[in-house]
């Protein structure tokens, strides 16, 4: 369904992605794990068109989307929920959700999708008139995910959705991601919570210094010597 092939990407002179290749099949949950600064967020930014590749190919449903701009990417159903939430802090929860549905189909179905989001996160319904910047970290994360859902994603890319959340909430977020997949949405997840994520994902890739060094099913990687040593501290 989706594939990245030999992508190189630089910020100015600083190359951060080196021949990165991976793919995501329809309906899968695929994770990208790696240390801080490995380039995980950069991969997502490159896919969503915020950064241009210096070489390589990004393909979605057989179509080359390497040089497509962010507005077109989101219309195709590839939706990026960025690291650290990046909500519109002075807007209400509801307005933040609306911002996820500016284009095409998502705009037409705005009301309907919003109700679904409130079903998924009843808490947000209570707070819908509150400024997003005044929500707790967990609530903000819910808004970020809900805003992503508002774009009617076919491929949802989540960048560290569990960042800064208490363990109970982390479990909630992962349950929600599973729920999202059940609705037929494919998920590409970036995570530092290696153990939990590897246990529930379908497949995973390990990114180190901008290169993919390992890949396999979650189970395989959980049992991998290197992963155990470097990421699980066992």
């Amino acid at each position, binding site marked *: 369904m989706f594939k990245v092939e030999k992508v190189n990407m630089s910020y100015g002179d600083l190359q951060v992605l080196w021949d990165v290749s991976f793919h995501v099949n329809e309906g899968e949950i695929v994770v990208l794990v790696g240390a801080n600064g490995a380039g995980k967020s950069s991969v997502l930014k490159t896919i969503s068109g*915020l950064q241009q590749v210096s070489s390589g190919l990004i393909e979605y449903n057989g179509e080359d989307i390497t040089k497509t701009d962010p507005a077109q990417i989101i219309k195709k159903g590839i939706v990026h929920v960025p690291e650290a939430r990046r909500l519109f802090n002075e807007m209400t929860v509801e307005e933040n959700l609306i911002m996820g549905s*500016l284009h095409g189909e998502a705009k037409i179905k705005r009301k309907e999708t919003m109700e679904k989001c409130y079903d998924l996160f009843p808490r947000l319904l209570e707070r819908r008139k509150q400024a997003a910047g005044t929500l707790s970290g967990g609530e903000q994360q819910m808004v970020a995910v809900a805003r992503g859902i508002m774009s009617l994603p076919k491929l949802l890319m989540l960048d560290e959705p569990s960042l800064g959340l208490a363990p109970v909430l982390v479990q909630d977020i992962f349950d929600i991601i599973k729920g999202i997949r059940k609705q037929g949405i494919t998920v590409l997840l970036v995570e530092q919570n290696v153990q939990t994520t590897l246990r529930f994902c379908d497949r995973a890739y390990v990114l180190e210094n901008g290169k993919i060094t390992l890949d396999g099913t979650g189970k395989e990687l959980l049992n991998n010597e290197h992963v155990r040593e470097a990421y699980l501290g066992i």
Partner: protein
Amino acid sequence: MDIFLQSLVSGLLIGGLYAIIGIGMTLIMGVLKIINLAHGQILMVAMYITWVLWNFLGIDPYLSIFITIPLVFVFAEGLSKYLLHPLIEKDSILPENQVLMTVGIGMVLVELARSIFTSDYRSIQTSYTEKSLYIGKISLSFPLVIAFIIAIFLTIGLFYLLSKTDLGRSIRATSQDKFSATLMGISAGKITILTYGLGSALDAAAGSLLLPVYYLYPDVGPLFTVKAFVITILGGLGSTVGAIAGGLVLGIAETFGATYISSGYRDATGLVIFLIVLVFFPGGLKRFTKV
């Protein structure tokens, strides 16, 4: 007491116009992250357009907003697209350079106006220029009342645009987080250019509305840039509701200065208020408006 009320009301009326000037400046500041030092000059351009329309075509200054608003909007979009925006695209160029560009635009506009219209003072004489309405002993200048009402409608329209339409929300989103706005599929570049046009269009409306009650000469431009700057600082930099408060406060302060000190001190009082606010409330009036 009557004089006090009279000044207060007159100040409020002129403050309504200052408010839309301030809102325009604030919008531009929010999205472009710059202080638009050509703001007053753009207002001056609108005043000259209005003057020409009245003098040569007999078009009423209030009706002329239907011409000045779109005309200045397109003109300002051009400035933004071809002069300001190219500077943002280059990472190496600091935002200060855009501010310098607005200074340059301002100077060119003033000198152009001087060469076309000379430095002569102009004003227009309509059938209602001298008319007044009376509430008890207080007299209200008829043209200012009309201008105030139109300013209120424009403000309501703008707030509707900003809070209830996708375009308006995209403008606010871009001013709050450009990166995130881009991820939502908003073209930050288009919004930036459009916002400069929109802020200038409000400014233009104020120019047309001011002409019946104000003298016009090229240096009105820099004078109003200073006023716009003061209003925005009073409003707490970047808050539209604050800009309304700032506009009203400046209008009232100026009128009191003119009444109680000397009419020659009208503009100076505004600056004194400005200094007082800077010293005692560095965050502007935002503290009181909380928006």
